């Protein structure tokens, strides 16, 4: 046995593990939440910890001797309390995001959100994206992932209502997250033809899963990759009553989108990968402490972080900097980073990297990753609209959902080519509509029926089956003004 001393902020814990254990597995199994975006195969470099004084990737570290491991500072759960009287009727709505769980305490008597509680999805150590999580399930980790999510949900419940059980818990999230919550193996979702075990809404007693609520209700999903989260979004924008052509875009990992065209609903998803959560970007990170979330350039380059000193780039910051570099012609139409001497910013390019600060930079490869992600989104939109039989210009409104959409600068998004320029003046940011929709249902449980109607009404467009998608995917990789 080898001794592993783990230092996490001020706390220290000693473990004894078998020789040749994998350090990431050890940390994970003892409840330490290490970011392992790529799922632990050495590619993303985000799982670094300090081992005996040296920075090492925990997923590549085998414990062969006694070690002292120091973990990086982690964002804590955040909660806010709007002081109000608690009546006996309390419901909780939870958005089970792939990256973040957001909980809301609802009091329907007052039709209000009384408090919120969010925390990082503890499954992050099994990979940032849905496919990595599915893979771990297929390798026997379903139970572990299931326990983690149930514990996290209970943590939210106790955090919001320490002394009572909520009458109901309304949950929305993507299809894979709901499968894992129900302890249902999502393996078949991970390979063609990508079938889900269940899609319909569910209602059951909390005791069934050890969840501290009387009744638990899950919103319905539309398909394996178009989830309850976007159904919730459709509820928020009252899509069934909508008379115009509108587009709802949820730019999370799955790139889900629903269009209402001439009275009919169509949906698709273009898995653009976790590019906007920073996973494939060298200095990319989620929207947490240290993340550059906005960049501006007028006389000089100014940088805004979520909080604290700049340590990396999150999605909204990435889009801003790419837009700036495009405007300055430091990135050409093909996506090549060039030291265009006409721009004052050219001096920040050294060794093929553009430095935003002395430590935070953007590489050519990062730009390529962005090109792939934005091309997937635009190609998805174009194919969806074609199948729905409408043009971009006939869209009256475009709703942007997802926390990434919330912080994103619309103008940058258009300049960077993430959104077609025809949509620029039609964009309405609606924030975490998955959460908002589940709050609506918590306030008025009959809305679950409306959710069911929405889910049943959507015609699913499978981009894998559309030749046009591949063609557009290539076409939209370049930057155009």
């Amino acid at each position, binding site marked *: 046995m080898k001794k592993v001393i783990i230092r996490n902020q001020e706390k220290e814990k000693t473990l004894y593990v078998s020789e040749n254990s994998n350090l990431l597995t050890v940390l994970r199994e003892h409840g330490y939440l290490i970011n392992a975006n*790529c*799922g632990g*195969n*050495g*590619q993303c470099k985000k799982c670094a910890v300090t081992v005996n004084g040296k920075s090492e990737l925990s997923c590549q570290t085998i414990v062969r001797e006694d070690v002292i491991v120091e973990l990086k500072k982690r964002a804590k759960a955040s909660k806010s309390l709007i002081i109000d009287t608690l009546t006996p009727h309390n419901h909780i709505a939870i958005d089970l995001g792939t990256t973040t769980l957001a909980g809301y305490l609802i009091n329907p008597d007052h039709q209000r959100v009384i408090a919120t509680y969010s925390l990082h999805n503890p499954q992050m150590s099994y*990979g940032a994206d849905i*496919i*990595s999580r*599915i*893979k771990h399930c*297929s390798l026997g980790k379903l139970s572990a992932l299931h326990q983690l999510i149930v514990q996290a949900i209970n943590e939210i419940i106790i955090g919001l209502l320490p002394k009572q059980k909520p009458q109901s818990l309304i949950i929305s999230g993507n299809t894979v997250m709901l499968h894992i919550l129900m302890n249902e193996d999502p*393996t078949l979702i*991970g*390979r*063609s033809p990508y079938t889900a075990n269940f899609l319909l809404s569910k209602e059951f007693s909390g005791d069934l899963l050890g969840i501290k609520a009387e009744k638990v209700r899950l919103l319905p999903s539309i398909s394996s990759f178009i989830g309850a989260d976007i159904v919730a979004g459709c509820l928020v924008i009252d899509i069934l009553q909508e008379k115009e052509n509108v587009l709802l875009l949820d730019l999370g990992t799955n790139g889900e989108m629903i269009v209402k065209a001439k009275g009919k609903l169509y949906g698709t998803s273009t898995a653009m990968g976790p590019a906007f959560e920073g996973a494939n970007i060298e200095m990319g990170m989620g929207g947490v402490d240290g993340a550059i979330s906005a960049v501006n350039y007028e006389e000089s380059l100014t940088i805004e972080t979520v909080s604290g000193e700049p340590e990396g780039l999150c999605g909204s910051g990435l889009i801003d900097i790419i837009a700036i570099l495009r405007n300055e012609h430091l990135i050409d139409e*093909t*996506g*090549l980073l060039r030291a265009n001497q006409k721009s004052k910013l050219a001096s920040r390019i050294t060794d093929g990297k553009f430095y935003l600060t002395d430590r935070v930079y953007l590489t*050519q*490869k990062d*730009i*390529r990753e962005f*090109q*792939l992600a934005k091309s997937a989104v635009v190609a998805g939109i174009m194919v969806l609209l074609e199948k729905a039989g409408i043009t971009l210009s006939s869209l009256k409104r475009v709703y942007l959902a997802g926390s990434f959409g919330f912080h994103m600068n619309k103008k940058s998004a258009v300049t960077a080519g993430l959104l077609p320029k025809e949509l620029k003046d039609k964009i309405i940011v609606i924030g975490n509509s998955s959460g908002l929709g589940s709050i609506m249902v918590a306030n008025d449980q009959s809305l679950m029926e409306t959710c069911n109607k929405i889910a049943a009404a959507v015609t699913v467009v499978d981009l*894998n089956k559309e030749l046009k998608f*591949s063609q557009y*995917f*290539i*076409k939209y*990789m*370049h930057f155009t003004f």
Partner: protein
Amino acid sequence: MNLTEISEYLQQGRAKEVRALVQQALEEQVSPQDILNEGMLAGMQIIGIKFKKNEVFVPEVLIAARAMNAGLEVLRPVLINSGVKPIGKAIICTVAGDLHDIGKNLVKMMFEGQGIECLDLGVDVKTSTIIEKVEEYQPDLVCLSALLATTMMEQKEVIEALIKAGLREQVKVLVGGAPVTQAFAEEIGADGYAMDAASAAELAKEILLK
């Protein structure tokens, strides 16, 4: 006739000019082997190097490949007649359960740019089909692509099926795709791994010329 001109037009994706210059070179009695190597393959290999360094991207590779194919249409019959052979044969496909093809297509283009003949089985290819085609086509290389962490395990299935069918010794198996790593390739008993299409083609050429 300056064969570098063909290479430059190819890199720029100018299919019409490539076709015209290849035709002209043949009329000037330039050896088809030279046209192939110095005009076409040289151009594609430069694109490959630039792609590896992210200096050009997917669209540029695709249009260069299109220009190369335009030239090959003219050149191929002449090459066959003069007994010029490819340096090797490869079967390439995306494994069962996986529908992604762009990466695989890029690899095929780069392979052809190295003078390797390719049989592309497409996407979502059943392991049993791969075995059948290996028996039929007798390739030197079997190249497997997987883009999802969930389908990469099929690569292991294919290798085991090759062993069971008694074909493992006859081929070299190369694997690739976003979630695939050198470590995984070694773990499943593959003969090689490459991180991008250009490196894959260089590795393949190295293996074939050994």
